[in-house]
């Protein structure tokens, strides 16, 4: 006979404020097999866990039910508690009476209490059928894959490599550096972005533990924590390893049709190019969609001028498949495309530019060598209007979130403008200024007080084109005035959005993403860099918009997580896997066909004395415990440990029975 202990948690007032926890505990005590039932303020706290351990010893319990929060939150905690008291950790079940009861049924305490009692009773029914399971271990491939070579990826790679583990850093573009390389200065210190980034890029390139793979993309992922098998496409660079980065090819290339992605399409670039002079690795690639040779079959100038014979037009895309123990996803962001804003000209007005374009305009390495001129006619500017919250805080444009950095970068850009051209006037239209961060508020104040940037509180309604000027029609809600400004240039503070293709990329890993496409962390507070896929971590703006210091901190956090994983000898894995009762197996191969992991083997086996049958067998080290075989087996020969038919049936039976609470 089972000896079950039921422990009902108040979670402060989180649960107890809605659910009558004493009644739940009292009801538990009346259930068959339950030897003790108690409620306590915080079950997960040290004294709470000790209550459980003491009860186990005192009543000789062999199974536990903890009625508390979601098992996704604390199942592991209570399994460890059980283990400490000498009970098999898989003899623990949780009844989720916080997320599934107290927090969602706060409108009727009686019904909530009844449901809590029911869920607890279901957990008791399930745990009654639990079996002791022993832990399983899997090997770890101690090599990390970092996807994305922006500041997040670089930082994560450097930190993991620093701990002595090998890292492969994959970047889609021809050079690492990412968005940060495009910036001119950084807030709130106004130090030069390139000056602080390039040393890191070089360090990554020179680290013996880091392998750089630029112009490459991850195309396929299988496996699981400790054993990811990843297929990577190395796009044909058309330039081989003989290249010494002298740059002659780029200088001589006659093609000028393509627009520079790095310069945000403000300037042309050659068909053979490195994105920017400080590129790492300093090896150009040929853009085959722009190259005269690839388009017409004639030219080959780069081949002629190359001193080392590094040009190879025959190169093909190459696929490699490698194994990794952990993955850091740092795929970054795109800025919001304002062609959805009809009122700001559908992205067709040349002198309405994005914040990132302004960075390139004012950067001394940019297309105008730091001279801020109008893209349409290259005239100097006098009045510049900055509009915040474009593609942020805008439900109508399906971007209701705050992009977090635009207030700051707008202040920075307005200051830089005044710095370069003291005679210009900068106007900033804002809704609210969000400057939470060390020295951030002071920075915005400086822009207004020292630099004389005029801040106007209101969203701009429309930009009219009129005779070489842009008429900006806005409002200042603080004074209640309508504002019209004749501007030379309008800079939009475009918000952040997930990288194009982020959803498809998430599906490679089966990571979940939010409705916009930002990747979901495992827990918003307690597991901000983990994902639901164990062994896959997220860093930087692919998770949500954030500034450089936060990105770097997050990247280092992922590195710490990876190193903690690699520091273990072997990986403990859940023994919640499928098993076949070969006596009842009819050998129809249905399970074999549906298994997503090929974890089922068909064998001719002597199942009874003298009876050899064609039957299924589960490969324990391969099975991930999804249960697809269980759902498909009509002979009822496969079962899933931890979610057995008996357990589920008893839960169903309990769920549908009335409460017998007097």
């Amino acid at each position: 006979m089972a000896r079950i202990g039921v422990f009902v948690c108040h979670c402060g007032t989180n649960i107890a404020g809605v659910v009558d926890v004493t009644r739940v505990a009292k009801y538990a005590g009346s259930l068959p097999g339950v030897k003790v039932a108690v409620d306590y303020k915080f079950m997960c706290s040290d004294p709470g866990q000790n209550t459980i351990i003491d009860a186990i010893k005192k009543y000789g319990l062999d199974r536990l039910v903890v009625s508390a929060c979601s098992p996704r939150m604390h199942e592991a905690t209570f399994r460890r508690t059980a283990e400490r008291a000498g009970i098999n950790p898989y003899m623990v079940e949780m009844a989720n009476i916080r997320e599934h009861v107290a927090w969602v049924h706060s409108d009727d305490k009686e019904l909530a209490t009844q449901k809590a009692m029911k869920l607890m009773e279901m957990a008791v029914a399930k745990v009654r059928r639990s079996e002791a399971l022993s832990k399983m271990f899997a090997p770890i491939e101690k090599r990390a894959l970092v996807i994305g070579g922006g500041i997040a990826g670089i930082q994560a790679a450097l930190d993991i490599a620093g701990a002595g583990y090998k890292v492969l850093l994959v970047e889609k573009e021809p050079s690492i550096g990412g968005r940060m390389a495009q910036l001119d200065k950084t807030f709130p210190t106004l130090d030069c972005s390139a000056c602080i980034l390039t040393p890191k890029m070089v360090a990554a390139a020179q680290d013996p533990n880091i392998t750089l793979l630029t112009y490459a993309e991850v195309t396929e992922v299988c496996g699981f924590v400790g054993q990811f098998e990843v297929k990577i496409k190395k796009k044909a660079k058309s330039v081989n390893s003989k290249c010494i980065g002298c740059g002659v090819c780029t200088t001589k290339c006659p093609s000028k049709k393509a627009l520079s992605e790095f310069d945000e399409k403000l300037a042309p670039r050659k068909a053979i190019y490195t994105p920017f002079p400080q590129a790492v690795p300093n090896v150009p690639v040929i853009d085959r969609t722009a190259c005269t040779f690839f388009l017409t079959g004639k030219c080959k100038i780069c081949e002629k001028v190359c001193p080392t014979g590094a040009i190879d037009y025959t190169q093909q895309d190459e696929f490699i498949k490698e194994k990794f123990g952990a993955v850091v996803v740092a795929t970054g962001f795109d800025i919001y495309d304002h062609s959805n804003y009809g009122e700001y000209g559908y992205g067709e007005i040349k002198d309405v530019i994005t914040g990132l374009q302004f960075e390139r305009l004012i950067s001394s390495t940019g297309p105008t060598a730091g001279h801020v001129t109008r893209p349409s006619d290259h005239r100097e500017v006098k009045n510049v209007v900055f509009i915040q919250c474009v593609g942020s805080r805008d439900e109508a444009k399906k971007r209701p979130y705050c992009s977090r950095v635009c207030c700051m970068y707008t202040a920075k850009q307005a200051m830089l403008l005044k710095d370069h051209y003291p005679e210009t006037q900068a106007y900033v239209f804002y809704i609210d200024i969000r400057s939470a961060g060390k020295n951030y508020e002071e920075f915005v104040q400086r822009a207004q007080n020292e630099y004389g940037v005029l801040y106007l509180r209101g969203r701009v309604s429309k930009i009219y084109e009129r005779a070489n000027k842009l008429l900006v029609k806005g409002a200042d809600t603080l004074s209640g005035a309508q504002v019209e400004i004749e501007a030379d240039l309008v800079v939009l503070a475009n918000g952040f959005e997930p990288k194009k293709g982020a959803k498809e990329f998430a599906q490679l890993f089966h990571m979940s993403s939010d409705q916009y496409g930002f990747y979901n962390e495992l827990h918003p507070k307690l597991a901000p860099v983990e994902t639901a896929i164990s062994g896959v971590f997220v860093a930087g703006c692919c998770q949500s918009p954030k500034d450089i210091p936060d990105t770097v901190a997050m990247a280092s956090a992922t590195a710490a997580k990876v190193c903690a994983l690699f520091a273990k000898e072997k990986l403990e894995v859940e023994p919640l896997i499928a098993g076949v009762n070969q006596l009842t197996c009819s050998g129809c191969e249905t399970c074999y066909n549906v298994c997503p992991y090929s974890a089922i083997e068909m064998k001719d086996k002597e199942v009874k004395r003298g009876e050899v049958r064609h039957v299924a067998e589960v490969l324990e080290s391969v099975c991930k415990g999804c249960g697809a075989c269980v759902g498909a087996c009509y002979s009822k020969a496969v079962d899933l440990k931890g979610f057995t038919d008996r357990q589920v049936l008893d839960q169903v039976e309990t769920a549908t029975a009335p409460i017998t609470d007097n």
Partner: protein
Amino acid sequence: MKYELQLKNIKEGFRKDVENLSQQKISNCYQCGKCSAGCPVAYAMDYPPSMIMRMIQLGMHDPVMSSNTSWYCVSCETCTTRCPREIDIAKVMDTLKIMAQAGKYKLSENEIPIFDWIFLKSIELTGKIYELGMIGAYNLLSLNPFKDVYPMGLKMILKGKIGFIPHLIYNPFEVIKNIRMFNAIRKKDRERIYEKNV
């Protein structure tokens, strides 16, 4: 400061009344001011639209209802089209006018309500608009009998743009049907505004 906001002065029901009748979530407004920025008639209004939204949020019934803002709204829907919080501001303005004309709140404007009354009466009795009669009646009732008579009105008549005979629905049954319909609508409107939403 012009107004002193005291909690006991905030009419709780006002925001709810406007929200129920307009079916718009006014509490959604975060005061970005885009409506005021784009409004073509804001210059003539006592308060710009965004401020009206704020005052409704705070239940400031008297200044909202006594202001000319809603009456100056031309229903051009610029605000609605551009509102980042997807509030149909023009509809809220309509609602304020409906509430005022239904007599639930004090009327601050009379030109437009007079026009509206004449206009709808014209539809009720003829099914269509009878411009000359309508303009004449309006000018009389708004105590400005010679408004627009010269030169525009005269020229209109000369160009044959305004007829002297109303276009009638010739079928008398249709006329009766029309009048009945209007009576039914008025009854339902009273229920909507007075009974359900108080």
